[in-house]
């Protein structure tokens, strides 16, 4: 047998399976850092009565410079969102891939998500076995749609607040009051959710602690695939498509980069949560 990668993978059971494409990982990377930038330059305004807020604003060079950073990050995030949307459109209309609208590869919530959630909750309290998941679990879908909705709402209201004179031609001025309110409240929701729930679901829960680097490496081990995505693994094997996803381990530098970047993000996020809790619980 010739030493040929796919063949080698085929011969022996693969050590890893591909979960995220390079584009997904890159988009997530940009999303992550623009989100951190937005959170750290925006929250000082929301908590402007706190001493730490003034300090944080000074760290970013004053409110004007913080504003420039905030809007720069906003442009990055809007770009990420636009690329993501255009990729969906291309898959839908270009590749006629209707699988993204329904089925196991789709982010669209489906009945099985509800049943899996109930089963998962029952398992938490010892009332049943751990459910078997497919490609996307219900909490991953929630994370996705929370961010999707958040980007639409926060991004939209943010643009209104960025260009009030322009939007005043389309909207009455009191809409700025509403835009201001939902921009802040949604931001609080997004920051609170990402820095606690998403971090826990992704990284901090006992079986993943301290972190899961799949979003950086794009790969899961064969064991993870078999145990955590049992339905997906069985489905792909039955369909004979499992080998399409076979992969070698990620290069070490990607793993290290992901671990460093992810670690920084988690620490910064938790610091922000601590500051918010400090302000809210006072």
């Amino acid at each position, binding site marked *: 047998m010739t030493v040929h990668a796919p063949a080698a993978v085929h011969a022996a059971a693969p050590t890893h399976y591909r979960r995220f494409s390079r584009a997904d990982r890159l988009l997530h990377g940009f999303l992550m850092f623009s989100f951190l930038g937005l959170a750290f330059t925006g929250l*000082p305004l929301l908590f*402007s009565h706190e001493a730490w807020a003034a300090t944080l604003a000074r760290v970013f060079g004053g409110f004007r410079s913080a504003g420039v950073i905030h809007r720069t990050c906003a442009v990055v995030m809007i770009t990420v969102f636009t690329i993501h949307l255009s990729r969906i459109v291309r898959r839908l209309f270009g590749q006629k891939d209707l699988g993204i609208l329904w089925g196991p590869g789709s982010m669209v919530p489906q009945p099985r998500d509800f049943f899996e959630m109930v089963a998962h909750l029952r398992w938490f309290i010892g009332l049943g076995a751990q459910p078997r998941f497919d490609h996307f679990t219900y909490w991953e879908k929630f994370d996705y749609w929370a961010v999707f909705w958040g980007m639409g709402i926060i991004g939209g209201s943010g643009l209104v607040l960025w260009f*009030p*004179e322009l939007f005043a031609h389309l909207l009455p001025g*009191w809409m700025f009051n*509403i835009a201001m309110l939902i921009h802040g409240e949604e931001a609080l929701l997004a920051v609170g959710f990402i820095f606690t729930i998403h971090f826990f679901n992704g990284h901090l829960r006992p*079986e993943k602690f301290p972190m899961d680097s799949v979003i950086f490496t794009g790969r899961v081990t064969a*064991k993870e695939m078999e145990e955590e995505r049992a339905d997906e693994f069985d489905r792909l094997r039955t369909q004979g498509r499992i080998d399409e996803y076979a992969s070698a381990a*990620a*290069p070490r530098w990607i793993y290290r980069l992901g671990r460093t970047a992810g670690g920084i993000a988690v620490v910064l996020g938790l610091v922000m949560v601590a500051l918010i809790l400090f302000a809210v619980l006072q």
Partner: protein
Amino acid sequence: MIRVLSICCRVAVALAATASLAMAAPQKPAAPKAPSNDDCLACHGDAGAVRADGRSVAVKPEAFAESIHGLSGLACVDCHADLARAAEFPHAEKLGPAQCASCHDKAVASYDTSVHAQARRSGGNLAAAACADCHGSHDIRPSSDTASRTNHARLLDTCGRCHGNEEIIKRGRIAIGNVVELFRDSIHGKALIKSGLSVAPTCTDCHGGHDIRRKSDPASKVFRQTIPTTCSRCHEGIGREYWASVHGTQVAKGSPLAPVCSNCHTAHDIRRSDVEGWKLEVIKECGTCHQQSLETYRDTFHGQVTALGYSRVASCADCHGGHRIFPKADARSTVSDARRVATCKTCHTGATASFAKYDPHADPNSHERNPLLFYTAQFMKLLLLGVFSFFGLHTALWFGRGMQQKAAGQWPRRRDEDSTEDGE
């Protein structure tokens, strides 16, 4: 030896007798006649002249000669009246105070109503200023003289001898503290000291000279309701604007709450109105009465940015005006329906009538004022509460179960290291 001593003694006695004769000569023959200035200076003109207790009683002849009293030919006994009839010299050590009132009756009558006179009388606080403490004694010059203690340019130092002296402030229990230090850094102080402006006010311009009264005294120039009048003596145009404003008319009606100049500008450390610190401070000042407006302002971008310590966005006066504040219903108001767009335009150059429908004091808790905002806020509250409650519980349960699994040895079923090529 004894002879030498006795000669010395005799010479000394003779000399002393001659000296005393020389001094007494012009006085002795005419006992009722008042001593002349030269008579007085014969002793007091000696720089080393001291009392029994060692305190100096010297008078500089040239300082007196150059003083207003010297120049106008006053005699020592005109002020030291009880020496006019003194028969014996050296005269008694304890004399009555110089009688300024014998000439300056109006000034002294005015002084008698002052906080300084009051402190001396009632509290027995002899540190409180009397005539000489400000004017000097033998070297008094007219206040138009630049060398005078009461000259416009030098008065701050004169008042500062007490009001800039920590020890005297403490001893005299002067509640306001070291005002001279505050004043030095104020816009008035800088204009006076640094720029040497003759129009810059010094202490007496606001407080008066002889009749300085407590600010609680309705006759005081710095009595609350009188302050705008006092300031208007220089700031004439602003005074007119202020008296027409909602605050001015309230003060004129006797309102004890409506602000006067010093509420926003302070008294001694008045700063330029365009410096950041003052612009931010004055927001809080408005909020002492307009509490709800301050709270709703803090919810806006304007209010958040100023709370962070940056003044480049609108604060109270930017929209409402400083001195020309009127109720919103008044057409003269900068936030009236007729003028609001123009006011927004001072910063937001593209502002339109639609733009100006923005509520800079929106209250998400007020259904009447902002119904849509109210419902949006309620929805957001429910959304946040719902999401965090559900996922808070979800996370807590998952964590508990996960720890249990881990303790039971069912997880470490995977390590991150598995994901790398070489598995560190």
